[in-house]
């Protein structure tokens, strides 16, 4: 294992992150604050409680997931797409680092960034509402797993994308709807029966449900199922990356 090589990639990526600290941190904080003002204060004041939790608190796990998922995807996809775009990808490809080491370096850095952002959003949320976390360890585990698995997905997107437009396309057309319809702002039980069934095909539902369980001890789907879903999703992403690197698809001529 070329640990120095992994560290070089990780460190380089984190440096890039801190170089753009303002847009990395400020924008999620501002958008989260806006969500709280609009949904928590304006609309939330008319919704009494959702299953015994104040609406302002109810949307916190969903908001964190919303940011963490979209940040993971954009961080990781940009991190690998940019070297492809500038041509600097030749360096890791001609260096004595394995594909796994490249993935650990890039995805590790992307996941770390989103973890930071998740923490910042939680801290921001704490300013607006009374926070309670029933299962802190489970909360952290869900957060970390989500950061890693969606950074893996972002990495795949970045490898696949042939231009900047494609880089934006999948998050915009697929991921954002899945997150919004994943129960960030509502409980599945509030939907009509048909939509409750359809929603169960949205993988994000399981993540948000599990994450919310860690906060309030209540969930739309059983917690075991949530864990299984995120494990399966991570496994699929890893398998796809493994195949990509084995075949050299879009990387090596």
């Amino acid at each position, binding site marked *: 294992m070329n640990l120095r090589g992994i560290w070089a990639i990780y460190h380089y990526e984190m440096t890039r992150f801190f170089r753009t600290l303002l847009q990395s941190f400020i924008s999620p904080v501002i958008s989260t604050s806006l969500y709280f003002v609009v949904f928590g204060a304006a609309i939330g004041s008319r919704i009494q409680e959702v299953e015994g939790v104040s609406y302002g608190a109810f949307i916190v796990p969903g908001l964190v997931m919303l940011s963490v998922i979209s940040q993971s995807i954009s961080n990781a996809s940009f991190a690998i797409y940019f070297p492809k775009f500038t041509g600097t990808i030749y360096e890791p490809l*001609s260096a004595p680092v394995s594909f796994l080491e490249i993935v650990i370096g890039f995805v590790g850095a992307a996941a770390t960034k989103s973890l930071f952002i998740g923490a910042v959003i939680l801290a921001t949320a704490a300013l607006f509402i009374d926070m309670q976390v029933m299962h802190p360890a489970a909360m952290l585990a869900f957060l970390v797993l989500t950061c890693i698995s969606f950074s893996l997905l972002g990495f795949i997107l970045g490898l696949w994308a042939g231009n900047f437009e494609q880089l934006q396309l999948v998050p915009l057309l697929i991921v954002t709807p899945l997150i919004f319809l994943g129960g960030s702002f509502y409980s599945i039980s509030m939907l009509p029966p048909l939509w409750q069934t359809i929603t169960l095909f949205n993988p994000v539902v399981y993540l948000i449900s599990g994450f919310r369980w860690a906060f309030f001890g209540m969930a739309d789907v059983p917690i075991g199922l949530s864990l299984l879903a995120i494990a399966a999703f991570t496994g699929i992403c890893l398998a796809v990356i493994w195949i990509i690197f084995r075949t050299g698809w879009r990387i090596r001529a």
Partner: protein
Amino acid sequence: MAMVEVEGLRKVYDGGFEALKGVDLSIEKGEILALLGPNGAGKTTLISTICGLVQPTSGAVRVGGHDVVRDYRAARSLIGLVPQEINLEPFSKVLPAVRFTRGLFGKPRNEALLEDILRRLSLWDKRDTQTRALSGGMKRRVLIAKALSHEPEVLFLDEPTAGVDVELRRDMWAIVEELRGRGTTIILTTHYIEEAEAIADRVGVINGGRILLLEDKKRLLSRLGRKELRVELDTSLATLPPALQNRGLALEDGGRVLVHTYDTAADRSGIAHLMADLRSEGIAVRDVSTRQSTLEDIFVSMVAKQEEPA
């Protein structure tokens, strides 16, 4: 000991283009090999395959005895690559960019070494500058610094002096000379034949995915390095006078020019003799000029010969 061994290397790209049609090449440790060839000859594909950027279709490549596919870690650890394109992350600063490459190759931090490399490349003053703010020549220096940062034993320079100023070219040659002294093996591709003449030990000519010629530079130049003395006469001659026959002389331009070809490596050129004979025959001379064949002539004639329909 052969540092780089290429055996029957073929590369067919996805589109069906065969960039390498069975290349065999062996490069000794400490040798400087210049690969000459026109655009699209296969130079960059050959280098990219050795460095791991392109997957070979068939054949084998070993660097330092390590197979570049099976044993890629050991092979790539030995290789430094200066790519043809200026590929740099625009927002990264010079020193961190060079440090990154050293780390990527698994080498421990060595700031003194990096300082030395940057100083030799006149980059030390620019170490905190973002690479996008550098001139083209400076960017190329950064690429060279990156390639040297992990102390490679084999250095690939893919057209290192294309479009750079005279100063950088001189610096480059000085660095190559210094690396040669340390026993580094260097493979460079170039369009500039004078570059190959100036620094290479051996010259390879590649075209159409094949190596057409691979020979010691000095031997190549002396074998093919014929020199011509062209004597312009005052009045044209229909035939050579008997005293001048059987000496390999030729008449050109309707008898107005007498051409004497001689070997630069030979003891006697025969020029003094020829001039004395011309005088005694009463032939008046208007002008003389000499012309030596260069690697460029050799190269152009080889490539032209290959491109003739069979």
